[in-house]
């Protein structure tokens, strides 16, 4: 095994099954015995060892059984996204719960993040989030720069455009919500398309992404309450070659490999946890075998292992990490079972020591119980125990503190000291987002006057966005060729489906053989490509009435007024056929909330209810349904 594997073994090499089982039994036992502290510790270990979806659900379920378990903080999170991200949510919630954060997470409509940001009446703003994470990837935001780079005529222009668009969206968001916004950097492609030659151009692909990401960081600094999540660095850290799952991306828009999910969730939590204020103000460290190798009382100043070579180098790396925390504003303290004189002499005089006594705000170097030492340190610094974190190489000491002082954040360390520095650097408790000053700035920024002007800007930019999609709709009568796809849509579409009536190929064929029935399909293209056949309407004509038996739209194209286009077309058909009334039922299900306001928003009136279903009706002689002006439709029938 390589050195890296020893420090941080990949998930599939962790000998987890026997440990998991016995730990699982121990968890159940602890719950039965009502030893809530132990149960929670074990659940934390279980999830830390294997942060899988199954363990996430286990954690959430078992923590839910602990009575009176209060969260230390809460957070309402909205994830606006361009790809499938739902599987992350249980991992986020479990990881958050274990750190004392009660997370309510909602996921925005598929690939509707632009509309949600630009429309002040969108679900995003209605949700009143505390934090918003934008989960977008290069492939969706800049498909040409990602996959067709060599064909892009004006790379600099494309970079400017994506940054300008993002700025406009952030500006609107900032004016309408006090929530913290998290923007991602865009991930580099695995291989630059020009290969080695990419580095020889003025503005090659790698540099282009670098420029975009630099622009995103600058953008975030211009607004209060906006931070950058370095997604590109996360992907690189775990390996571009294995981060994505191309086959699942093509099949179901799920771009992440199963093993990447936990890494993404942990990375998000490194922002959400400090955002919720769950940071550690003080890190209390042990000395022997932690700050240096060896035991100073036995090995003496000259004998402890600290220096540029192995094994001292691991401890130098840890000290550097602690020094970096110190510069970030985290206080350092010492709790060590030692002779104070020996310990202070080492700290003061060892030539390779990076940390000196003046870096520490308090210490208890004696032979007392460490829990007592931590209590005294907290008291001396005038802080609660929940402001403390504890770093000790000795698992027995860690377990003792977890048991005796449950409010203290005890870092889990790997067996090998070479992993200590990373354990400190990756811990969310030491991240700082500089929220406090920004809170003030944000409330100044969020003012009525700006709100009014921003509304006008929002309308333009939302329209501008819809226009920029260059949508082209082909609406036509269903044919024998398109029938199977329509049947499939009736069976699979749940969200934008007004009546959720399921039809097989044969049933559909039977219906449309009847002259009273007509079926229409919607095919949608846009600037990103051809979405295919994504909408369908089944109509039944009886006398004066055209009833919409089925009206559905694939969730891929919700939120772009394509549904209005299809409805306008249907209204045109009905009018041309001489009918007066256009009507349709809305049958609410657990999933079709996105379609609930559809008829109302187009001027239909409710005329009948049957249990929970509502019949909506539109008088074609007395109104029009306007075809959206930003969608072109060859051969469409205009409303009357």
């Amino acid at each position, binding site marked *: 095994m390589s050195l890296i594997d020893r420090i941080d073994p990949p998930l599939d090499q962790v000998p987890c099954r026997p440990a998991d089982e016995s730990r699982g039994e121990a968890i159940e036992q602890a719950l039965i015995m009502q030893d809530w502290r132990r149960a929670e510790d074990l659940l934390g270990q279980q999830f830390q060892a294997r942060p899988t*979806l199954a*363990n996430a*659900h286990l954690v959430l379920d078992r923590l839910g059984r602990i009575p009176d378990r209060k969260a230390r903080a809460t957070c309402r999170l909205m994830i606006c996204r361009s790809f499938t991200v*739902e*599987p992350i949510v249980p991992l986020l919630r479990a990881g958050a719960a274990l750190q004392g954060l009660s997370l309510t997470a909602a996921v925005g409509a598929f690939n509707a993040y632009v509309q949600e940001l630009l429309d002040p009446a969108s679900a995003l703003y209605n949700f009143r989030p505390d934090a918003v994470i934008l989960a977008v990837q290069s492939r969706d935001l800049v498909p040409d720069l990602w996959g067709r780079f060599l064909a892009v005529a004006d790379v600099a222009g494309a970079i400017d455009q994506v940054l300008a668009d993002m700025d406009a969206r952030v500006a609107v968001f900032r004016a309408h919500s006090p929530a913290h916004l998290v923007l991602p950097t865009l991930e580099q492609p695995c291989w630059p398309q020009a290969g080695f030659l990419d580095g020889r151009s003025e503005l090659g692909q790698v540099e282009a992404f670098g420029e975009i990401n630099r622009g995103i960081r600058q953008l975030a600094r211009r607004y209060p309450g906006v931070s950058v999540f370095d997604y590109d660095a996360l992907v690189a850290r775990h390996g571009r070659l294995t981060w994505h799952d191309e086959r699942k991306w*093509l*099949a179901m828009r799920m771009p992440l490999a199963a093993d990447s999910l936990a890494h993404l969730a942990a990375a998000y939590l490194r922002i959400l946890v400090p955002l919720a204020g769950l940071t550690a103000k003080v890190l209390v460290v042990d000395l022997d075998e932690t700050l240096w190798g060896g035991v100073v009382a036995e090995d003496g100043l000259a004998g402890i292992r600290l220096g540029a070579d192995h094994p001292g180098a691991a401890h130098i790396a840890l000290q550097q990490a602690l020094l970096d925390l110190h510069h970030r504003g985290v206080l350092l303290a010492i709790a060590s079972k030692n002779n104070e004189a020996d310990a202070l002499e080492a700290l003061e005089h060892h030539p390779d020591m990076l940390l000196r006594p003046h870096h520490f705000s308090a210490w208890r170097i004696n032979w007392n119980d460490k829990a007592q030492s931590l209590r005294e340190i907290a008291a001396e610094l005038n802080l609660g125990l929940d402001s403390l974190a504890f770093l000790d190489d000795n698992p027995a000491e860690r377990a003792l503190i977890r048991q005796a002082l449950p409010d203290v954040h005890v870092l889990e360390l790997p067996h090998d000291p070479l992993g200590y520095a990373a354990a400190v650097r990756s811990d969310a408790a030491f991240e700082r987002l500089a929220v406090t000053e920004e809170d003030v700035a944000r409330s100044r920024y969020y003012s009525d006057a700006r709100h009014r002007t921003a509304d006008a800007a929002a309308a333009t930019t939302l329209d501008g966005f819809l226009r920029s999609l260059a949508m082209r709709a082909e609406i036509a009568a269903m044919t024998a060729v398109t029938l199977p796809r329509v049947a499939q849509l009736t069976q699979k579409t*749940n969200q934008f489906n007004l009546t959720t009536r399921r039809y097989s190929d044969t049933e559909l064929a039977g219906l449309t053989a009847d002259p009273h029935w007509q079926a229409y399909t919607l095919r949608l293209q846009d600037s990103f490509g051809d979405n295919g056949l994504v909408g369908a309407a089944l109509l039944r004509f009886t006398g004066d009435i055209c009833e919409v038996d089925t009206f559905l739209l694939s969730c891929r194209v919700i939120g772009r007024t394509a549904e209005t286009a299809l409805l306008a077309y249907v209204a045109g058909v009905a009018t041309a056929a001489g009918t007066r009334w256009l009507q349709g039922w809305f049958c609410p299900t657990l999933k079709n909330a996105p379609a609930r306001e559809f008829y109302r928003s187009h001027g239909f009136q409710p005329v009948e209810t049957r249990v929970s279903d509502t019949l909506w009706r539109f008088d074609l002689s007395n109104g029009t349904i306007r075809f959206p002006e930003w969608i072109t439709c060859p051969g469409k029938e205009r409303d009357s």
Partner: protein
Amino acid sequence: MSETTFDRVRTVVAACFQMPESAVSLETSPLTVVAWDSMGHMTLVLALEQEFGNYIEPEDMERLLSVQDIVALLER
């Protein structure tokens, strides 16, 4: 005690759909579990990949219509 494939699949299915393990049998399927819709199916497949370390192809995903199908696939 070594667990059978079914035992391990049962644990994952029970966890993902928040059911008691005793309620999960070989016949358990999307028809008998409300939460087992298309998103639930994808999440379940990801959870199984994490648990077993096997990659499950999208073509195979479509054919997993019950716990029995899952066990059969993983034992292949």
